[in-house]
């Protein structure tokens, strides 16, 4: 989100996001019920990969309860001030000024100051160097702290995703053990502290009694169950877990057992990519790609993946959100399956599917098998190689394949959806390793747009190019689902996996008796 609009939003929401807002939200949830203090919430979402928040590798839901950021993404996807009370952006879009809240305490009792923000930014830029925030940091020309509660950042050029990326730049106390290498005991400002961590097993976060939002948190402890390969629905129903991520096909059983199911705000995007780096002669023929696209039954796929709540779409952003376009959706030629047309296209291209074996690489997901089966209906022979995380990554990087059915989880900024379509973007293999200078230019335009209206148009143009070139076929969106146990009160999912937001999160959760 950018510029003037962002500023107006920020101002408007800043007033709501104090303690008053939390109580208001509380009474809306459960009129008449006062929060009960104490207890341990057992929650199973994503994992925790490192004790050094700046070095995370993608799953941030857990660490957000003990470290916070200048700004956070609200429940509607808009940027809201968090540790910053308010922020301003210059006319030319290059200078950001953040005004910090007063009396925010770190877990060791020290007050948050502007110099801490600067230290964190510099750490990401200088010590961590690589990864997630590299793009954002490389755009910063200068950081300064005019006074103890003000931070000023000057960028080299306008960079639209900057604020959203800042929502993942965690602020820690520089005295945290391991600051110059890998932090072992992170000292943050969050409502819970970094307690004991058994990797891949459990992480316990005890409450921080001097949290800057008064009266919060209600819970004594949050216990994160980190093991990923479980069927959490059974644990929810047995009362073992209070909050857990669940698969869509377990929803009916859960609701029957009086377990509430909530959806995340942002969605996981499902798509089918072609090999764009080294396509075989067969796959270079546009008609073959079109035929395959016609064979996919998007509705059946999305129903399989996410049930009734899943949505079909040919765009990388969730339907009914700002960057999505209704017209483009309606004009989707591949919205409904058309096997006849597909076969006709193959005939026109002179292709006899029975003579060709298509190599498909995917993770070990059921939806991939469903999609592969649909392609098989055209008559192609299929060699489907389903590997684990690493295996898939490496196999895709050889560019020795034809199709890759895949998915991509919620992202903090629309830019992150497009970043991988760049010629030298991060992990481009999921999208077939696109190398298209014109596309790069279109995305760069979007990123440097002075207004979100222009950014929207630019992103749309970029995506049109992707569709025209048939690099990848967008199939649909499905939100991840969270089961909420019977004793839990005040839990609301956010836009992303964040468990601690300015307007929501575990700080506001309590357990009934």
């Amino acid at each position, binding site marked *: 989100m950018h510029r003037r609009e962002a500023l107006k939003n920020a101002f408007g929401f800043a007033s709501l996001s104090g303690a008053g807002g939390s109580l208001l939200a509380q009474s809306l949830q459960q009129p008449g019920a006062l929060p009960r203090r104490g207890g341990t919430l057992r929650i199973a979402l994503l994992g925790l990969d490192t004790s050094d928040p700046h070095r995370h590798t993608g799953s941030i839901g857990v660490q957000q309860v003990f470290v916070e950021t200048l700004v956070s993404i609200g429940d509607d996807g808009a940027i809201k001030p968090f540790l910053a009370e308010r922020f301003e952006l210059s006319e030319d879009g290059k200078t950001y000024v953040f005004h910090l809240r007063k009396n925010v305490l770190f877990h060791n009792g020290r007050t948050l100051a502007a110099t801490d923000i600067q230290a964190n930014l510099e750490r990401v830029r200088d010590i961590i160097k690589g990864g997630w925030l590299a793009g954002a940091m490389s755009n910063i020309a200068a950081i300064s702290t005019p006074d103890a509660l003000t931070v000023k950042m000057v960028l080299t050029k306008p960079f639209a995703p900057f604020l959203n990326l800042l929502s993942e730049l965690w602020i820690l106390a520089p005295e945290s053990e391991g600051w110059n290498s890998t932090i072992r005991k992170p000292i943050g400002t969050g409502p819970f502290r970094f307690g004991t961590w058994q990797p891949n097993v459990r992480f316990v976060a005890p409450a921080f009694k001097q949290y800057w939002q008064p009266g919060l948190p209600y819970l004594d402890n949050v216990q994160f169950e980190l093991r990923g390969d479980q*069927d959490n629905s059974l644990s929810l129903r047995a009362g073992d877990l209070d909050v857990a991520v669940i698969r869509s*096909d377990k929803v009916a*059983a859960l609701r029957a057992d009086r377990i509430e199911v909530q959806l995340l705000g942002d969605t996981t995007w499902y798509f089918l990519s072609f090999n764009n780096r080294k396509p075989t002669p067969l796959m270079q023929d546009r008609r073959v790609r079109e035929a395959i696209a016609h064979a996919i039954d998007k509705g*059946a796929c999305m*129903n*399989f993946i996410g049930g009734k709540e899943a949505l079909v779409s040919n765009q990388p952003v969730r339907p009914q959100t700002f960057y999505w376009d209704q017209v483009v959706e309606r004009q989707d030629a591949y919205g409904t399956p058309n096997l006849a047309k597909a076969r006709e296209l193959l005939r026109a291209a002179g292709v006899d599917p029975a003579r060709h074996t298509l190599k498909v690489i995917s993770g*070990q997901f*059921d939806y991939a*098998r*469903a999609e592969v*089966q649909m392609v098989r209906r055209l008559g192609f022979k299929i060699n*489907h*190689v*389903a*590997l*684990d995380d690493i*295996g898939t990554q490496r196999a895709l990087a050889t560019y020795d394949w034809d199709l890759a059915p895949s998915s991509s989880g919620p992202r903090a900024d629309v830019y992150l959806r497009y970043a991988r379509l760049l010629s030298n973007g991060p992990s481009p293999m999921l999208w077939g390793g696109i190398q298209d200078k014109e596309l790069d230019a279109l995305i760069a335009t979007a990123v440097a747009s002075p207004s979100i209206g222009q950014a929207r148009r630019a992103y749309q143009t970029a995506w049109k190019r992707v569709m025209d070139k048939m690099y990848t076929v967008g199939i649909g969106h499905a939100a991840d689902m969270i089961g909420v146990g019977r004793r839990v009160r005040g839990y609301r999912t956010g836009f992303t996996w964040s468990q601690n937001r300015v307007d929501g999160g575990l700080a506001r959760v309590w357990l009934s008796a």
Partner: protein
Amino acid sequence: MARSWFSWHHLAYAMVAVSLLVAACGSALLALDPLEQNLLSRNLAPTAAHWLGTDNFGRDVYARMIAGTRLTIVVAFLATVLALAGGAILGMIGCIVGGLLRTVIYAAFDIVRTMPPILLSLALMVALGVGTSSVILAVGIAYMPLFAYVARAVYEREMASGYVSAARVIGAGPWAIATRHVLPNITGAMLTQIAIVLPRAVTTESVLSFFGLGVSPEVPTWGRVIASAVEFAEQTPTALLFPVLALAMLTLSLAVVGDRLREHFDPLRPAVEARA
């Protein structure tokens, strides 16, 4: 004891025979395509159209069971044969040549045996990638030590026997002794061991599939069918029950056959082997 188990043994033989028969001409018994997905009729209980119901992809469970018979037996059999070949041959060579080679070979098998077979197969699968040939290789390697140890036991037993000492007195070389005296006697022990390892190979394959590291997702071995059904056990218990029953009956029959073979060929062998 043979008298009182008369009917059991016959039942076991029958079961194995039926399995082999189904494996051989299974496609004739198929009414529906085991690979065909029907996303609209997922997880159904048994109906007239689907005798054993459908799985999570809407595939007919009965068809998958029938098709799976051949694949399950073939995969398990090939894995066992690989284990036999690798274990017995390497083991025998080591015993015959003796000395350093023997120590090295059996030390290697010792190392392999230290890892629990499931963990070892898992690690090998991760290295080799998902696929039927990888499963055969992984399970085969994991069970090689068993055959090697049996080979060594038989070798040593035969070497201690009277006529071998006589042969040595005459001046027969170690290779000649091995081929003439040890090899014929090893068949019995090996057959017994095959009948013991085969059911374990089947179970190991099903555990690998349970962890998502077994044969390719399309290939309907019983292990894969069970693994897919486990997640939806509550919704459609039949999809889990039937393959488990079939698996249990097959491994049981194989075990009983193995028991008989053991009684017939090799009553002196210790009753203890390393477990899956």
